[in-house]
């Protein structure tokens, strides 16, 4: 075995050398990045937004809005006299990647705050991780209601309305104006099942009748089977709890099969990009949204202009509901730091809890509920515009009604949230 032995010797030494070489390489970059971070002790905020994966485009809307907010504060001289810096990581719509990236943000980049989420699959583990460190984390746009219920955390604040709220907002209207014979399509994963669960709850309230349900597995591209089944059931209303590209494809094929005429289609939760992706003729259905860029409430249009100016040429130039949540969440984080006068997490949490946000570009103010950290916003009911009604290519929805926060916020009785006390939360920052 002599020759073998020596060659092993070689490779072993080479291994070390190789590793060292890499080390130097990485080290160089590392130092360069450190150097960049040596301004006048800036407040460093970690943005966890998807740039790849299912929610890539929504994630980027989220990110653009946050960056806008940060830039506006820096223009005013930062917070507590400190400039604000941000470090963005692509969370890839993927829980385990997100956890790794977050660990890096916290451990290496030493961020003071963390913000950003679209997918509840990412939000839950991130908020859990944040709680372990005690770092404050804003869950800007994920809408599963678990993160404000059994998975609620002291350091986590949830800025989007959740599935329960959407379902409850739509239910009465649908049963009143569209019909009581409902058929349900359920996207077969956690989010979809939550929505359907909430939908059923509402049905019993409003006395609607369920003709049947079909589960739509993720990655389903062809919905003809389901559409034909729907047709044969002859419902008045189809509740499509389907998100992402599946939703786009579903609409596409519903049009192709003429199923959009079979019944009234309701998409309890509508992501703007998924609707935008469609050919105008093929946009149909009723849905909810938390904000829309044509609103004329105080500050709204000004915000829209600022956003358009900053992000001209972006895939989606106007701020839609995701961007609005992202912007307000970011802004409120910085304001809270100002109110607390420190970046120490305990103080900032206190400054946030129970705070009422008046200039939220909406008719009714939003409240940060201290007992489940849900930011309770108002909800708009909307339907898709026909091509001829559109003012410009961004104008997809017609708002047909709105509900004040208190009317659709989940009451404390049904909450399953048992939150750690502030004392239990490790001190972080400051």
């Amino acid at each position: 075995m002599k020759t073998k032995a020596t060659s092993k010797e070689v490779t072993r030494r080479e291994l070390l050398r190789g590793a060292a070489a890499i080390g130097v390489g990485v080290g160089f970059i590392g130092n360069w990045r450190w150097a960049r971070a040596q301004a006048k002790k800036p407040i460093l905020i970690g943005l966890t937004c998807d740039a790849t994966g299912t929610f890539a485009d929504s994630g980027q809307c989220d990110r653009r809005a946050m960056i806008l907010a940060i830039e506006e504060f820096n223009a005013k001289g930062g917070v507590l006299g400190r400039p604000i810096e941000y470090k963005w990581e692509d969370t890839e719509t993927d829980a385990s990647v997100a956890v790794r990236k977050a660990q890096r943000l916290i451990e290496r980049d030493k961020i003071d705050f963390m913000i950003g989420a679209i997918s509840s699959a990412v939000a839950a583990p991130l908020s859990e991780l944040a709680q372990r460190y005690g770092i404050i984390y804003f869950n800007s746009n994920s809408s599963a209601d678990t993160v404000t219920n059994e998975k609620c955390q002291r350091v986590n604040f949830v800025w989007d309305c959740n599935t329960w709220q959407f379902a409850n907002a739509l239910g009465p209207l649908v049963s009143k104006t569209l019909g009581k014979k409902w058929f349900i399509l359920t996207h077969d994963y956690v989010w979809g099942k939550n929505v359907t669960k909430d939908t059923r709850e509402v049905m019993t309230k409003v006395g609607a009748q369920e003709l049947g349900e079909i589960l739509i597995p993720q990655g389903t591209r062809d919905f003809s089977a389901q559409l034909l089944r729907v047709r044969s059931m002859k419902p008045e209303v189809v509740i499509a709890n389907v998100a992402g590209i599946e939703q786009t494809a579903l609409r596409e094929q519903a049009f192709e099969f003429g199923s959009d005429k079979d019944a009234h289609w309701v998409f309890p939760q509508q992501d703007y990009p998924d609707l935008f992706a469609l050919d105008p003729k093929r946009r149909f259905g009723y849905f909810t949204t938390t904000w829309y860029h044509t609103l004329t409430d105080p500050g709204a249009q000004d915000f829209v202009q600022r956003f358009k100016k900053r992000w001209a040429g972006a895939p989606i130039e106007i701020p839609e509901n995701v961007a609005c949540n992202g912007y307000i969440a970011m802004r409120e984080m910085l304001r809270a730091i100002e109110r607390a006068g420190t970046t120490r997490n305990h103080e900032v949490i206190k400054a946030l809890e129970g705070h009422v946000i008046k200039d939220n570009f909406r008719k009714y103010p939003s409240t940060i509920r201290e007992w489940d950290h849900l930011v309770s916003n108002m909800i708009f009911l909307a339907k898709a515009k026909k091509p001829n009604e559109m003012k410009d290519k961004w104008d997809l929805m017609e708002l047909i009604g709105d509900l004040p926060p208190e009317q659709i916020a989940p009451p404390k009785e049904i909450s399953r949230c048992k939150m750690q006390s502030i004392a239990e939360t490790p001190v972080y920052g400051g």
Partner: protein
Amino acid sequence: MPGLAELVTQILNGFVLGLLYAIIALGFMLILGTMEVINFSHGLLFAWGGYLALTLQPYVGWWGALGLAPVGVGLLGLLMEFGVRRTYGRDPLFGLLFTFGAALALEELIRIFWGSRGYTITAPAFVAGPFRLGFLYYSKYRLLVVVLAILLLAFVWWFLEKTPYGAIIKAGAHDSEMVMALGINIGLMRNLVFGLGTAMAGIAGVVASPMWSLKPTVGAEALMPAFIIVVIGGIGSFWGAVAGGLLVGMASGLSNLVIPRGSILVMYLLMVVVLLWRPRGLMGQKSILEL
């Protein structure tokens, strides 16, 4: 309980799906059979077909796109082959990994050129919407798909059965003596076959996008069925791929209603069953690829 009308339409539907799958799978198989390369980028090339069509459509219309996009994809394939070339005769792993890398790059390129938002392609007007025929109530566009698919399959059949290339692919290109005997320039042949295979992915992409809509991720999703169909049908067998395609199409189509959650899994179960029953797939001959 589904009525007769529904059942018939469902079967018709599985048939359409199956044909589409078969096309994707055949392109994949051409490359596998000739080059012994598992082309991981096949799905992405499928996606590229769709995206190129998306860009071309405004200028040349859907039919134009149907003609041009696959050519573009084919050229992409030819280009890729110059890299893949260096992996021939090595462990099959290398070709596989190379195309795997290519797939990642292609997906990101889509993001760079078209962004990660979704798109849809509008089919030509004369096939828009549904049509009614007795109790049958179905999408016009899908009938067009059937016609196109059958034409394409006929072409591939001719290619495999009536040309020396076909003979080689079926025998497995490793049989160099045979190739010599036929006096064929292997290098050129491989290059062309690779182009052809990828072009087929492109065609499938264009045809599918008006139904399935476009996102950077569609590629990865289109690959797996192709994969399984080849295993089920047996490498190098045209009818195997067609049969496999239809089988998978029907199975996943119908199971959608019975066991929705399993509808994707059903392909894999099908595969496992077939392999237990016939290790070389339904119509696969003993091939060097196993040795």
